[in-house]
């Protein structure tokens, strides 16, 4: 396994009778963008809050940037930038002065860094305006600039595109990818499936505080892969394929058969058909979508909005 920047073991948070995070064990390797995906109330923000020391776990442990949660969290946090929930600033200070303040308490960087970050998030022209005059989208951008103060090794971004227009969302996603290529590991929490699919390399799916699945998105989808094929005798082929023990389902649609089959065994499918005298005319892997995968693993077949998990 690669070096882990975040590693939780049986992390649990209980608020009275409510189990917000239940026995969560995730591993975030260094580099890339790691998504925490789940509907609202699934425990994403609570998990981030525990990692950032804002909330104490009821039980369980974790390590941040190789440091123990109890003895080394504060030191680790000096190398972590974060937005948790909505970004919070002093409304009577300008964007620039807010960043100067946070830079001051972090103890790294100078005015030029603040100006560069404001430019990076497109707020240079409003740098001297009070934050109370900012729109939600501008506050979100300022939040990203705040998270990038001190050139962190690890970024926690909790719903970073909230409140942004589509162009702003695209810019932020591009920025996240860019940061990732520059060596910063990003832990992104989102309830937007397409956002996670577009930006993240790896994902942990949470539902009702529990970890449902985690791994590289490509692997998760491939693991549940399917092949679509047509043969010289589809009726006979469907019978042959459905008897194979490693095929979980066979469906016929639009003149094609689709079999749920582990990707690494798809060649065996062709062989089995050939052995029974059925020739394969066409065969191609069917890439599952994260949305379909998410709905299957969480058992939620009625999302309230297309492309969202809640």
């Amino acid at each position, binding site marked *: 396994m690669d070096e882990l920047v975040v590693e939780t073991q049986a992390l649990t948070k209980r608020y009275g009778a409510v189990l917000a995070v239940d026995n969560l064990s995730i591993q975030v390797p260094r580099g890339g963008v790691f998504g925490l995906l789940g509907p609202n109330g699934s425990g994403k923000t609570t998990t981030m809050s525990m990692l950032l020391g804002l909330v104490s776990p009821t039980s369980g442990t974790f390590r941040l940037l190789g440091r123990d949660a109890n003895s080394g969290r504060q030191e680790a*946090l000096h190398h972590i930038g974060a937005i948790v929930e909505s970004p919070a600033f002093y409304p009577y200070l300008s964007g620039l*002065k807010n960043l100067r303040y946070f830079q*001051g308490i972090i103890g790294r960087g100078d005015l030029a860094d603040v100006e560069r970050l404001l430019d990076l998030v497109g707020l240079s022209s409003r740098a001297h305006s009070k934050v109370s005059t900012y729109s939600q989208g501008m506050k979100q951008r300022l939040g990203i600039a705040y998270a990038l103060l001190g050139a962190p090794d690890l970024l926690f971004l909790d719903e970073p595109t909230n409140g942004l227009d589509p162009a702003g969302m695209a810019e932020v996603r591009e920025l996240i990818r860019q940061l990732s290529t520059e060596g910063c590991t990003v832990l992104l929490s989102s309830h937007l499936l397409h956002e996670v699919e577009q930006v993240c390399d790896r994902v942990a799916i949470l539902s009702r505080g529990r970890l449902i699945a985690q791994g590289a998105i490509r692997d998760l989808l491939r693991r549940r892969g399917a092949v679509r094929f047509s043969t010289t005798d589809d009726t006979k082929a469907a019978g042959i394929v459905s008897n194979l023990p490693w095929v979980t389902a066979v469906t016929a649609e639009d003149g094609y058969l689709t079999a749920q089959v582990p990707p690494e065994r798809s060649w065996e499918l062709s062989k089995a058909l050939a052995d029974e005298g059925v020739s394969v005319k066409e065969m191609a892997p069917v890439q599952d979508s994260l949305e379909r995968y998410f709905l299957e693993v969480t058992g939620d077949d009625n999302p309230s909005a297309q492309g969202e998990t809640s």
Partner: protein
Amino acid sequence: MTANVAHIMNLTRWEWYKLRRRWMPWVMLAVLLVVSQLFVWVSYSINRSEQSADVYANFTLPGSIANVLGFAHGIGVFLVVILTASTLGTEYRWRTLHSILARGTGRWQYLASKVLLLVLVAGAALLVVTATTAVSSLIAGALAGDAPPGSSDSPQWIDVPVVFGKAWFSFLPYIALATFFTVLTTSSAAGMAISLVYYYAESIVVAIFLNLFTWFETVASYMLGRNVTALMRSGEDTMVLNFVIGGGFGSFPSALHAFLVLAVYVLAMVGLAIWLFRRRDLTGN
């Protein structure tokens, strides 16, 4: 240890960066100055109609400074409670505490830096009041001319730093009180309200109970306001300190007793506030 001190000093510096950009402390300072200067100029007006050595000493140096500091203390307590609850409570309301603590800022160091800044600001406000009073006393003294005949037992120059120190130290328990209640309630309004209600209620309760029960004097000698009044009044009987709320009937504890009791109050309340602040979850408000 050195790292913690350096951390607290850095945090205090940046807390000042924020605080000086708020209008509230400046308005409070203006109120404090206006009220304290009123004392000088009202004494000056009285002196014009009925000249006496005592009244003359109230608006001329050095008596004016000691008297004004004692007078300003009563209003200062009220203002310091509001400022403390506001600077701390808004961090909860604006959720800026999340942004501060998520970057590795130590919790107890952060709260300590807030308290330290408020203590320094209170001292600085008293210094400004002192300097302004000195200037206005010189002007009032020049306008009034020579002192009327007779002697006055008003404070001397040597009393000025003592009264300054007592006034400043007496702010500390109220800063600690407002800090504790604001952390406890995570709200400016509640922190302010509880602290101010306590401030006024204590003096009323003490006055009533002292009249009803003689044994209550022992209890009262360990109460906050009673000890603040005792400290402010110690050795300065002639000063105009009747504005200091928290008095009552019966005899006051000694200055040393008052100092020690107040020090325990400060340590206990700041300690409790830090304990609460460290262990409490910061969730979305």
